[in-house]
């Protein structure tokens, strides 16, 4: 049970970090946002089917946390280093 919970968190952290790196690329924010949301829904269904609703909750919290962390990290880098000339 613990392994399943940790694994769901791990999957959520990886997916949240990936979402952070993918969402900022390109100019089609709406399309990218919808595609990422759809992909997140696929993962959420999979986690629910394989591990239950508690794991699903952990997955979603971990994904949101990693996404937030990634966005904050990127903002901090931009603040510190700015854009190239």
């Amino acid at each position, binding site marked *: 049970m613990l*392994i399943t919970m940790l694994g769901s968190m791990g999957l959520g952290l990886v997916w949240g970090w990936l979402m952070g790196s*993918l969402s900022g690329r390109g100019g089609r924010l709406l399309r990218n946002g919808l595609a990422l949301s759809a992909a997140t829904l696929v993962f959420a269904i999979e986690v629910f089917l394989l591990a239950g609703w508690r794991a699903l909750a952990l997955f979603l919290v971990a994904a949101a946390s990693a996404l937030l962390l990634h966005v904050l990290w990127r903002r901090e880098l931009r603040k510190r280093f700015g854009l190239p000339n």
Partner: protein
Amino acid sequence: MDETQVASTIQLIGAGTFGALIGWYIYYINRYRSAEIQLNDLMTLVGVLGSGAILALFPAATDLFGAYGIGLFIGFFGYFIIVAILVRGSENFDADWFLDGRRKKLPEDYYIPEEAKPTITPMEVPGGPVINP
């Protein structure tokens, strides 16, 4: 010794190692991907990370999916941490490399071979990457 327990442990290690391999490779693919996100990229990611194959490989209500997730985390963030350590230890890169790929100019007696694969966008920045400005 309980044979079922041994098999289960081997299965857990296998699932975790499989996850680590996938996690490592996903970071690698994402690092060298073209700048503009395509629907195909997402489909590939969804397919690799959590497709029907994962559902088929790891039966519900077992710890195998959990071991896969832990391995995925270790592989993915292991790659990131190693890159961060290498960037920190390098004289040619700083943390701003993570922003847009910027780095120091090559000295006169250094060159990049034609066949070397460029790192396109470690992270997004408007205007594209800075490669050997």
